[in-house]
């Protein structure tokens, strides 16, 4: 697998709690959750830059909400 570089990450209590919760729910290490988040963020950013939009759709309420990403 590709060589890796190490970095130190400073998180608030709330951020760490959220990360730990996701780690438990997804059955993944905290590092794996963050790496996956980076992949997702990169894909979303690339698609938004291509002019696409990101929506959450509620099929029952027939409602769509656009998700704005930094």
């Amino acid at each position, binding site marked *: *697998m*590709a*060589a890796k570089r190490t970095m130190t990450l400073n998180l608030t209590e709330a951020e760490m709690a959220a990360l730990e919760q996701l780690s438990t729910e*997804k*059955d*993944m*290490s905290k*590092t*794996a*959750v963050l*790496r*996956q988040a*980076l*992949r*997702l963020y*990169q*894909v979303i950013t*690339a698609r938004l830059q291509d002019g696409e939009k990101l929506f959450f759709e509620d099929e029952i309420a027939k409602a769509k909400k656009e998700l704005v990403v930094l």
Partner: protein
Amino acid sequence: MTLEVALEDRHAGHIVPATLVERIDVTYARRTDDLWLTFLAAEVARARAAATSLSLPEHAHWRWERKVAAAGHLLPYPTLAIEFESEAQGLMMLKTDGEFARLPGETGKPLVYVVFLATAPWNLPAVVARPRFRGVGTVLLRAAVETSLDLGFKGRLGLHSLSQSEPFYAGLGMTALGNDPKKENLNYCEMTPAQAVAFVR
């Protein structure tokens, strides 16, 4: 990033060191398309001249240049190659986000999805009487499992198998879940963490 892997060279009669390339680019994919298509065209012509039939691989129409261009530089879509003497012996594209296990006991857990996997035509018994390398698909699947382990997915894999490849995936210990009407009715197969451990051992 490249790693050394072993392939069986059936012409030479021994194991040779090949290279696993962890992310190829569009130029590499185009060169591979040219090589593979040229080889296939020559085999088709040879079969016609000899008045024999040739069973083309189901993936003969794939154009890796387009696939790699579409995946671009995005982290979740690595395309790997196994290379020997500067020629791709096999290619595989993975998807590492948004895919989840369907097997009971694993349902909903993230997995690495094998989007495309193909072996060079000169390694396929259906195309040539004396295939060159054995083990290309196995080495690529092992790399997919390693990717799954590396990402924290515990070795879980999923893929839709072309019918010609179903015995291959079954032989690697994957579980077939049946034909998937949402994916051209191809047979969907999964590898559990336990199967992955047994496979890479």
